[in-house]
């Protein structure tokens, strides 16, 4: 009985280490940033490329390096596969960090095809980036980046308002045509104003006001909100 329990325990521990080691071994891809395994056929996409960790070539895997390509990693381990390295290619074991240019530190590289093995101003470790495959559209403002959802009233620095990198300018502005008295202040809705001719950043646009009122108290609280009249707004863009 005791032997059966010991055998079960040993199997459990062995299984844990087996699966734990497999969990660590992600397949190497073009966007790998940490230790990975080549178990099929793989070649890095960029002429200077690599990862922050080790590359293991396991049974059935082939890592190919063509002439003119440099790949950096902390180590290259050939445990069962094949490495094919061209004359003129270079393996750089001992590389602890691979960098990309991200001068505004918004997590998106200025170029997805250029990597470095040396640290310099504006360069960040690939493992600190949000994406290796989507480039930044303007690397001088951290607010301008792919997927940005915030709208801005000022241009990003180059007279463009394309903050979300979709190669278009989407406008919006406050509209008070149906104002609401919320949290004791007049709350207006944003409207999509993409079709309007008003330039981004323009202030003083009449946002309207068709009253809101409220005011209250004598224990209904709030006190004031009003509205009516007219108000102005700014054309925001992204």
């Amino acid at each position, binding site marked *: 009985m005791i032997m059966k329990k010991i055998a079960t325990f040993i199997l459990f521990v062995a299984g844990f280490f087996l699966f734990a080691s497999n969990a660590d071994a992600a397949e190497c891809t073009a966007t790998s940033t940490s230790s990975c395994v080549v178990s*099929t*056929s*793989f*070649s890095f*996409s*960029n*002429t200077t490329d690599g990862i922050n960790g080790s590359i293991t070539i396991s*049974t059935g895997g*082939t890592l*190919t390096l*063509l*002439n*003119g390509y440099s790949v950096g990693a902390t180590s290259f381990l*050939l*445990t*069962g*596969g*094949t*490495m*094919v*390295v*061209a*004359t*003129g290619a270079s393996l750089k074991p001992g590389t602890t960090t691979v960098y990309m240019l991200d001068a505004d530190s918004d997590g998106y590289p200025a170029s997805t095809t250029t990597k470095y093995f040396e640290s310099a101003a504006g360069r960040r470790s690939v493992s600190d980036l949000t994406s290796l495959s989507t480039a930044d559209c303007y690397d001088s403002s951290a607010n301008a980046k792919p997927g940005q959802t915030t709208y801005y009233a000022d241009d990003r620095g180059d007279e463009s308002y394309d903050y979300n990198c979709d190669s278009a300018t989407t406008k919006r502005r406050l509209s008070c045509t149906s104002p609401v008295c919320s949290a004791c202040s007049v709350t207006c809705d944003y409207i999509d104003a993409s079709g309007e001719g008003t330039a981004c950043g323009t202030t003083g646009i009449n946002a309207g006001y068709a009253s809101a009122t409220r005011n209250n108290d004598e224990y209904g609280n709030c006190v004031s909100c009003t509205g009516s009249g007219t108000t102005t707004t700014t054309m925001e863009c992204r």
Partner: protein
Amino acid sequence: MKFKKLPLNKLLLSFFIIIAVAAVGYLGYTYFAGQGQLPEPVRKITGLPTGVVSITPTPTPKPTPRPIGTGKQEFGVSMSQDAWPKMTKLIIDPIDPRLLQKQTFSVEVNDTKPITSVTATVKMNDKTKSVQFSLVDGTNLKGRWEGSWMFSGGYDEYYHLILEGVSGTGKSSFEMVIR
């Protein structure tokens, strides 16, 4: 049988009543047949250009193929300890062939038992070609094997090379990603 001659005004009135009944009947029929929809009025579209209108689809830009080098390329091959036969030095000449240009593969192979065959399989965009090698230098235990073919096929998107060696010990192979 004799027909009584009707006055002209009664004749015209009868004619208009028949036309009106026919019109109401037609509208009623189309209304119910169209499930509550009155027939669409004929719309005249103006302002369209006349003559042949050609529609040009917007081409999807292809990504630039990654550089693979040019001409003769030499590779050092490191295989695992238990892979036999062992291939060591590979030459692809040229790596970037033009259509119908001769492409030659050369590989040094060794084993403790005789090597019986070496084959290359070139996988391209939409074509796969197998090339048989022959021993051109050395012995079937340690020698240089070579195979050629007249290149045909596109390789701007996909270009793999599979090398396979067979010997008395067994079989070994690897697949290079060139593009």
